[in-house]
């Protein structure tokens, strides 16, 4: 009965193959919900769905398989139950788990005829891409952000893989910019998030918030250090025990916290006068003495409370109140479970209040224009706007591409971009022929190889593992062997075998310019040959550089014209909704793509990009956007709240 409708319009054999096809849907969020509905109603019978996430209130405006009563439950599980209510004949298996869990190995992927991604983060997308390549299973990749969306098909040996086009690395900020010399609101927001974790969450050495005396800008002047040492003696508070221990010792007194963070620490920063030669010096704040804070001043904008910007006094008050609330919440939780981490849970009001207040106070201190809670939430959580309509469109497109694959017409598949509105050529959708695999892709080439510039005397084995192999090259559990003729094992994925190496430098293992490392990820069935180039003069704060990679500069334009509007230093009139997917997605990655060069490869249909503009900014949030095919779903985060990718 289900397939009746399709028999009319599709071949009978296809309809039959749907009922035997085993399908894996990765993600049960915005696109995932739509997709599950579409596949069962198109006649797929055997479906497995995996999602590690639980349902949040802010999902309900589009993830229609969930209702209020489901908040807090497993997305995969509830999605399965809801679909079965409507289509009891479907055979659905749900996993409340991460697809990156080693249980889902190549064998697992080989069970399927087709995999559909409905994901929200690049790490998982990279991983599924590799698993599908290893298992040689076709993959349909997709993403949405606001009104924009994208669908593409990946088939080993035939098309580009997800990683063929280098994507800009996620934007990170150097520690000393966050701790000493913030110059943009986002730096203050990141600082406030770190501060939250330091005070109320799990302390992380990489998330230090106090002034950094090891700032390379100062390190070579011993006299300065001395002055600062004196300053530090004079003011006991600056002695760094642990931020949290200190806060606890004050009983989380908001005024004491305030004075330390916004006055003493800033005064301390001022002693590092080198930093302020060319910058505007920060202005230490005094706790407003007379408590004349009852009414927030300087209310800008209208509309939602969230969208207003209050004056300094207002944020002082918000700071003090949120500290009190969070402290009492900490106390309520008792000793054992006293930590909760900033998981990007922007929908937690007291945490968000704290971050809003602390970030704004710091922005004020550093002469930036303060931002509304609404905007800060966007930036802190990288929140990407998401609506039902776009997901419905994209999920519809995905299934149609799936039907082509199952009828053996992979060549007919397209990368499809969904525009916000019909482009000047009156096209809402822009389909482009799929590109062949890139010969030097470090993932899908027959012998993947890559060259990395780093300083062998300064790079720890642990950094090689975590920052380069895992973070940059997307591996889950790498094994590294040095091609030194002896086959020295540098890193083993077996626990306990090579931990001793972690804190040694690469040069300790005779790795030098020209050394080659063979890196294996057993789970991903992936081998990568890494050529090391020793380099003494990498840019400040750059630990390594991948040769031939997309320059990281391009994607992080300070403020191109278009962005300016959205990333405004905060005094944007808030009557205007923070619309346009641009704003938030922006923190993630953006590619500047010259759309003029985009002519669909072959394609019987003369489709060309909307090439009205010169450089078009492509954000890519849940997806890439629609104007240039080069842009491949970098960093997409499937809609949702999981699109919350910590910036750090």
């Amino acid at each position, binding site marked *: 009965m289900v397939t009746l*409708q*399709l028999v*009319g*319009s*599709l071949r009978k054999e296809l309809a039959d193959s749907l009922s035997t096809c085993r399908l894996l849907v990765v993600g049960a969020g915005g696109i995932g919900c739509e997709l599950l*509905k*579409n596949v069962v*109603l*198109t006649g797929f019978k055997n479906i497995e769905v995996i999602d590690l996430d639980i349902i949040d*209130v*802010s999902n309900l*405006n*589009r993830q*229609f398989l969930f*209702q209020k009563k489901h908040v807090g439950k497993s997305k995969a599980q509830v999605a399965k139950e809801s679909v079965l209510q*409507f289509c009891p004949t479907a055979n659905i298996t749900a996993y409340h788990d991460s697809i990156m869990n080693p249980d889902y190995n190549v064998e697992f992927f080989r069970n399927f005829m087709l995999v559909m991604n409905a994901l929200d983060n690049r790490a998982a997308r990279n991983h599924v891409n590799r698993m599908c390549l290893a298992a040689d299973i076709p993959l349909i990749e997709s993403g949405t952000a606001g009104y924009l969306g994208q669908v593409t098909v990946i088939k080993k040996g035939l098309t580009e893989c997800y990683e063929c086009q280098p994507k800009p690395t996620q934007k990170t900020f150097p520690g000393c910019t966050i701790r000493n010399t913030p110059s943009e609101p986002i730096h203050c927001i990141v600082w406030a998030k770190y501060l939250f974790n330091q005070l109320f969450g799990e302390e992380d050495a990489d998330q230090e918030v106090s002034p950094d005396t090891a700032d390379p800008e100062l390190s070579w002047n011993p006299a300065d250090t001395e002055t600062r040492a004196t300053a530090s003696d004079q003011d006991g508070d600056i002695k760094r025990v642990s931020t949290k221990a200190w806060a606890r010792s004050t009983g989380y007194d908001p005024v004491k916290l305030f004075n330390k963070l916004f006055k003493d620490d800033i005064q301390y920063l001022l002693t590092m006068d080198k930093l302020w030669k060319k910058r505007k010096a920060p202005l230490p704040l005094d706790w407003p003495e007379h408590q004349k804070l009852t009414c*927030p001043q300087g209310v800008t904008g209208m509309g939602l*409370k*969230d*969208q207003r910007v*209050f004056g300094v006094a*207002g944020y002082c008050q*918000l700071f003090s*109140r949120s500290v009190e609330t969070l402290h009492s919440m900490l106390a309520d939780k008792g000793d054992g479970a006293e930590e909760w981490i900033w998981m990007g849970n922007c929908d937690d*009001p007291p945490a968000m209040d704290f971050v809003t207040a602390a970030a704004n106070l710091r922005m004020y201190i550093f*002469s*930036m224009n303060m931002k509304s*809670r609404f905007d800060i939430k966007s930036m802190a959580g990288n*929140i990407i*706007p998401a*609506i*039902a309509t*776009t997901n*419905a469109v*994209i*999920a*519809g497109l995905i299934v*149609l591409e799936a*039907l082509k694959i199952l009828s053996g017409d992979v060549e007919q598949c397209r990368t*499809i971009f969904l525009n*916000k*509105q019909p482009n000047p050529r009156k*096209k*809402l*959708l822009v*389909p482009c022929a799929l590109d062949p695999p890139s010969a030097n892709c470090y993932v899908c080439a027959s012998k993947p190889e890559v060259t990395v510039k780093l300083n062998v005397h300064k790079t720890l084995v642990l950094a090689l593992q975590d920052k380069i192999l895992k973070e940059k090259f997307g591996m889950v559990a790498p094994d590294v062997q040095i091609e030194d003729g002896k086959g020295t094992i540098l890193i083993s994925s077996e626990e306990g075998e090579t931990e001793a190496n972690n804190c040694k430098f690469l040069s300790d293992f005779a790795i030098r310019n020209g050394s080659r490392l063979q890196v294996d990820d057993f789970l991903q069935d992936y081998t990568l040959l890494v050529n090391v180039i020793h380099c003494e003069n990498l840019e400040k704060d750059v630990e390594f550089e991948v040769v031939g990679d997309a320059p990281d500069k391009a994607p992080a334009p300070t*403020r191109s*014209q*278009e962005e*300016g509007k959205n990333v405004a*230093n905060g*005094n*944007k*009139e808030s*009557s205007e*909704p923070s*619309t346009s997917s641009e704003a938030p997605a922006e923190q993630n990655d953006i590619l500047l793509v010259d759309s003029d060069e985009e002519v669909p490869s072959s394609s*019987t249909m003369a*489709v060309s990009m909307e090439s009205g*503009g010169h450089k078009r900014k492509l954000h890519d949030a849940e997806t890439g956007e629609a104007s240039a095919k080069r842009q491949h779903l970098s960093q997409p985060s499937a809609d949702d709240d999981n699109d919350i990718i910590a910036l750090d």
Partner: protein
Amino acid sequence: MAATKTAKEQKYDRQLRLWGDHGQEELENAHVCLINSTASGTEILKNLVLPGIGAFTIVDGHKVSGEDVGNNFFLSNNSIGRNRAQAATELLQELNTDVSGNFVEESPDKLLDNDPEFFHRFTLVIGVQLPESTCLRLGSVLWNANVPFLVCRTYGLVGYMRLVVKEHTVIESHPDNALEDLRLDQPFAELKSHIQSYDLEGMGKKDHGHTPWIIIVAKYLEKWFSEHNFQLPKNYKEKEAFKQLIRQGILKNEKGTPEVEENFEEAIKNVNTALNPTKISSGVDDLFNGEQCNAITSQTPAFWVMTRAVREFVQNDGGGNLPVRGSIPDMIADSEKFINLQNVYREKAMQDASVVSKHVESLLQSVGKPSGSISEQDIKLFCKNAAFLRVVRCRSLAEEYSVETVNKDAITCSMDGADGEMVLYLMLRSVDRFYQQHSRYPGVYNYQVEEDISKLKLCVNSLLQEYGLNVSVKDDYIHELYVFCRYGAAEPHTVASFLGGSAAQEAIKLITRQFVPFNNTFVYNAMSQTTATFQL
């Protein structure tokens, strides 16, 4: 303070980021009518119920069939035999308790016979899978009642939408890449004196490096004007020369090498857009000269009263310019300088808006309406968006279908288009003709497919002949004939899902009066994943 968030704000957080709380309010006040809760119908409605429209009413005289259950997520096996409007309402209602769901167990034709005014109450009527005759009848009722009508259809692997609205005005069109409204070529008095309060030569190094780029450009523009007979730098060469002028202003250290001054770099970068002459776009000018703007009556909608008031402002107070928008882009500057500059623009914008508001008041008075009937807030929003006002006027269905007024040019021109969506449009018109003659769609019964192909061919030919369409790409439509007969009027779910998303998106644009809806026909080819819009 900002601490309490209502449950609604939390639930709708991700969409408020697209259309704001005022857009959401419009949505929550809307009552949408859906005719026929087929797969496409319920998919559209689902995408409107989730973001929280105020109410919906389904009109459907059909009983739920097994086929319905097969492709419609909001109908289940145990609803077979029940009225389709009722069954679908129950399940759609579950999606969002904020929405009020209603149903009428009657066919649209019956309602049109007995109570055509029934349809007047809706914010928007969405008609799905309607036969041509019903569509035209309903179209004319809604046209006369000024109710927007969105016609939607899924036919095999083809999706179709037609928007029928006499006039849809948009204040917030959210244009991409809009230029800032800085008035540097014609600074207003307050801006002039603010610029004068800066002395780039006399100020200290820190202040120099934190002066907003707008001030820098304005300063050097004064210099340029005095040397160039008050003409803006126009061509590339002059703009380069102007940039050079700014570059020379960068401070130098003792050794004579220029310092790094990011604000100056920013000024240079912004020269091109900042020097665009302030002027009124032809689109807005057309609105000023339109009939609605000239003849204000007590019936004139607020949009046109405000447009007229802005026109008065332009002619009498603004020296030929629109009210100042009042926003400036983000830039390198210290807070104080930035906020001061921003206030200059913001205050001017408020002043301008209050002048416009006076015009609104006297216009309202002149037609005997209370002066408060258009709120200050609306006027402010209007002034802020005055440069981006849009009006969409669709042709009626009657005009599209009448032999006298058919847009032949649009059809013949689009036949050359490589994607062939126009052929699909003509095929849809032909299957309607088939339906009129045979009371069924072609290819619904397998044994009739061959026979139906030749019958459909006759329909295509008579359609082309009747409209005098000299269309030469015959091969295309012969291929489509076969395909269309194979569709058998089926409504595959995945195509319905696509259409459901696209149609709901247009509905949201219409309801929130934000973003610009398409005008007026949209065709989707699911095989090639292509789309096209036509003005028919």
